[in-house]
Structure formats: C-alpha cells, structure tokens
C-alpha cells in the first residue's frame, strides 16, 4: 500500500488532468446532445491544437496564452466549416451511421496528413523539459497542469453560462432536448447545430493547446484522447455537461490510481473496460439523463 503522500499526489494529478478530460468530453457531449453526431475527429482536433501550440512555441516563442487565444476562434471556425461541408449534408442523407463513417474517414485522413507533413516523431515543447512545479503540503504540482486546470474551469463555466443564460444558448439547449418543438418555436435548428459543433470543436482544439506542455505530441495522439473522451461522456451521461466534467475528473483519478496499483501498460485499458461496463449497465451514465 503506497504512502499517503503518493496516494494524494495521484489523486491531485488525477483531478488536474481530469479537468482537461472533462473539457474534451464536454465538447463531445455538446455535439452529441445537439445533433446526435458522434464526432470521430474530436481526438484529431485535439491533436491539431497540440501541434498549433507546439509550432507557436517553437517558432514564435512565448507561453501558452497566445496559442490558447488563437485556438478558440480558429477552431470554432474550422468546426463550422466541417459542419457545413461534411457533417450536415451527410447527417441529412445518412443519419447517425453516415456521420459516424464520414468522421471516421476524415479522422484517418487528418492523422495521416499530419504524419506526412510533420512526421511521426514524438515532440515536446521546451516547457516540458524545464517545467516549473509548485509544492505545497508535500505535493508537487506542475505549473502546466495548474494552468490547464484553471483554464478548463474557466472555459467550462463560460460555456455553461452561455448555454444557460443567453438566448442562443437556450435555443441550442432547446434543440438538444426536442428538435421539433424547438423548430415550432422558431429556432433555426441548422444554425444552432452549426454553433454547437463549432463550440465543441473549439473546446477540443483548446484542450489540445493545454495538453501540449504535459504530453508528447504526435499524429496519433488524438486516438488516445478520443477514446478517453467517449468513456467520460458515457460515464457522465450523453448530453450532460455536469456529467462530462465530473466524469472527466473521475477518469483522471481512476487512471492515476490504476497506474499506481496495477500497471502502466494497461492504463488505457481501464477506461475502455469502464466504457463497456457503463454502456451495459447504466447507459444513461452516472449523472446524466440521456436517450440511447
């Protein structure tokens, strides 16, 4: 049984990392909740965000903030573009399966395109090589993780406020709850979906920026995160933002503890098994209301 400090360190790390997982999952769950699309490129958008931050730091220098501020609008725009040209037409023609397949194909294309131009080498930003950590109470916490945690928290709160208190936000929620009813109330469904997709993508890209100083960047890294994101979304309940946030933290902590008690190689397997178990026994998630 490991010492208490080690346990606590694992839990704290888990919470901090979990906040990013939550951010990613929220983006995915918004997209799913509003338009019933399972966005298979979500992970690759994270990867693109990571590369954005990487190249920014390498070529221009400076900290995390500039790429973060750029990522938000850029990825929002990219999301809208992808929705308009690919997701929306296929959703109308082929339904859930069609969008699943087209986003899967797009994911294949994006990851391999990146591999072609930037090679498969694992990259890390200088920040990783010289990371500052703060210590208190016997724990050491990296500044990058802290920054990620606070940024995620701010973004999550901002998105929640948007969805709950603005007119557009409410219209988006209405679309998620009952498309037909929303249409009768005069909501422009197409536009709401567009915005929701854009937001989801923006959150993914931003999460990537936050992850850059913490993990290696390489073309297939998206796959790892999208699997985790699915686990979180299903754990927390499809379409539930609170669920996604809490689920993210739960996954983060579980992973850190699992690595401690079992083995690192199977770390990713925990999430997967949890995923299938939850789908089987509590498909509405631990927290959320959903419709499977």
């Amino acid at each position, binding site marked *: 049984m490991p010492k208490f400090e080690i346990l606590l360190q694992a839990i704290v790390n888990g919470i901090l990392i979990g906040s990013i997982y939550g951010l990613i999952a929220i983006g995915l769950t918004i997209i799913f909740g509003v338009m019933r699309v399972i966005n298979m490129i979500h992970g690759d958008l994270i990867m693109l965000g990571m590369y954005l931050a990487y190249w920014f730091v390498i070529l221009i220098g400076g900290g995390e903030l500039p790429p973060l501020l750029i990522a938000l609008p850029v990825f929002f725009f990219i999301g809208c573009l992808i929705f308009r040209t690919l997701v929306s037409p*296929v959703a109308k023609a082929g339904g859930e*399966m069609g969008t*699943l397949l087209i986003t*899967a194909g797009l994911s294949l294309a994006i990851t391999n395109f990146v*591999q072609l131009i930037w090679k498969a080498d694992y990259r890390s930003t200088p920040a990783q090589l010289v990371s500052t950590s703060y210590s208190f109470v016997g724990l050491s916490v990296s500044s990058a993780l802290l920054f990620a945690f606070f940024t995620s928290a701010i973004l999550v709160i901002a998105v929640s406020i948007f969805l709950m208190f603005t007119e557009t936000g409410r219209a988006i929620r209405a679309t998620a709850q009952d498309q037909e009813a929303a249409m009768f109330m005069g909501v422009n469904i197409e536009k709401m979906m567009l915005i929701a997709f854009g937001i989801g993508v923006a959150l993914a890209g931003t999460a990537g920026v936050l992850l850059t100083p913490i993990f290696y960047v390489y073309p297939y890294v998206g796959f790892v995160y999208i*699997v985790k994101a699915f686990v979180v979304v299903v754990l927390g309940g499809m379409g539930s933002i609170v669920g996604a946030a809490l689920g993210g933290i739960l996954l983060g902590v579980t992973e850190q503890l699992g690595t401690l008690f079992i083995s690192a190689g199977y770390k990713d397997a925990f999430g*997967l098994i949890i995923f*299938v178990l939850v789908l089987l026994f509590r498909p509405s998630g631990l927290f959320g209301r959903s419709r499977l």
Partner: protein
Amino acid sequence: MEKRNFNIIYSLIGLAILIAIPIFEPSKYVMHILILVLLNVVLGQSWNLLGGFGGQISFGHAAMYGIGAYTSTLLYLKVGLSPWIGMVLGGLLASLYATILGYITFRLRGPYFALSTLASAEVIRLVAQNWDTFTGGDDGLSIHFEIAPRVVEYYIILGIVVGTILVMYAISVSRMGYYLSAMREDEDASRAIGIDVTKLKVLTLAISAFFAGIGGSFFASYQLYFNPHVVMTVHTSMQMIFVSIVGGMGTIVGPVIGALLLVPIAEIFRVISPAANLLIYGLVIVVVMRFMPEGIIGLRKKFLRK
C-alpha cells in the same frame, strides 16, 4: 435487400480466369498482389455482412482478424498444428469472441455499438501487446520458413473467396438475409414483426467474425510475420470498412470492387509512405460518404437509371 448485382455468368468467367492465371507463370510480385486482393475481398465480405447487409457498423473487426492470426500461428509454433486446421480454429475463436461481444453489447444501438466494438478491439490489442510471454508482445510472431509455395497460397485464398461469396449469397437470398435488411432499416419495426434482433445481431457478428478470423490466419500463414500494430489496430478495421463502402455497401460484388481499388492504391503509395496510403483511404471514404454513399455500384445504378 436491393437487387443483387451478381451476374452468374460474369462471375464464372472471372473465376475461370482466376483459376487459370498461374498457368501463365506470372511474376511473384503479381501473385502477391492477387493474393492481397483476394484476401481483402474476404475481409470486405466479412465486414459487409454485418455493416452493409445488417446495418451494424463495427470499428473493431481488427480484433477478429488478429485473433485469427494469433490463434493459428501460436498453435503452429507451440503445438505444431497445421496452419490450415489452425485457420479454421482461428475463425472459430474469432467467432467466439464476437459472440461474447455480441451478447454483451446487444442492447446498444448504432453508434454506441460501433464504439464498443472499438473499445473492445482496443482491449484485445492491449492484451496482445502486453502479454509478451505468450503473444510476443510488440515484436509479434514470426514463422521462420515458408509454409506453402506462393501458388498454393493463391489457390487456398481463392478457394476461401469462393466459399465466402457462396455463403454470403446464400444468406442474402434466405430468410436471414431478409431479416438483416429489415434490421438495417429499422430495429424497432423489426421487433414488431417478430424478428429477434438480439439473436440476429449476435449470429451475424459471429459469422462475420469467422471470415475475418480466417482472413487473419491466412495472412499470418502467408506473410509469416505480424505484430499487434499490423493486425489489430483501428487502421486494419478501417481498411475493411474501406473495401466494403467504396465498392458498395450491402452488395456482394461491392467488396470485390473495393478490394480491387484498395490494393493498387496501397502499392502505389507504399513507395511514398504508409501514411500517404491511409490518407488516401480516409479521403476516399469521406468523398464516398459525402457524394456517393452507395459506393461505386450505386454510381453505376444511378447512371443506368438515367
């Protein structure tokens, strides 16, 4: 199920040509390409049964393919069992995996089912990667001498292709085939007319997995080397999807066309890089899903209707 684009005369002519080819002593390279095409036809038919006919998208067929490969190879290396018997066992073990998966995930619809096939396949891959003592881990397994001359391998895979297509055809004209089409269109309506959707899903999964497993075993016996990254990743699954979708989902000739496209593309881009290859696959899938979801066959149909 839509009209089967399965013209018996053309098929028999095609088969005759394929049987005759080795007589002309083509180069080893050409034989290699033909074998790859035929293998991919089997894999495409496998995925197509579940995805094209049954409407259940699976992202985890690589697991069944890989299980086939590992089963026959391990049995051969450890126990000396003939790879051809091992192949059948590989198919059966893959079926077993699929049956268990099916019973666990039967409640899941569409995308959730797809995701759980992916998650499950990933777990299997992680096991193959981490259980080094048994599976050789990341390094994979290799067989150190040729199991059969290339020509023999060619006829074996050709035989498998014929068998696979016959089975698929038989299913498509049977009660099961009709039920599959119904299930693809609407699961609830299917239940309402007495279809046991659960049993049908599991059965289809098992049959589909059997052929994927056989394909994997054959690959192992032919290529004589593989590791988890070659046979058990999502890329392998996506290749099977490519073969089914591009030619025409839900048709029997579709995967044949898909395989005929997939292998040459792979060869052309192999010179550049495997990433370029996969990039093309991805782009083609995107284009097909966006503009011609019925695949190349669908294009031909549209063309003929005018």
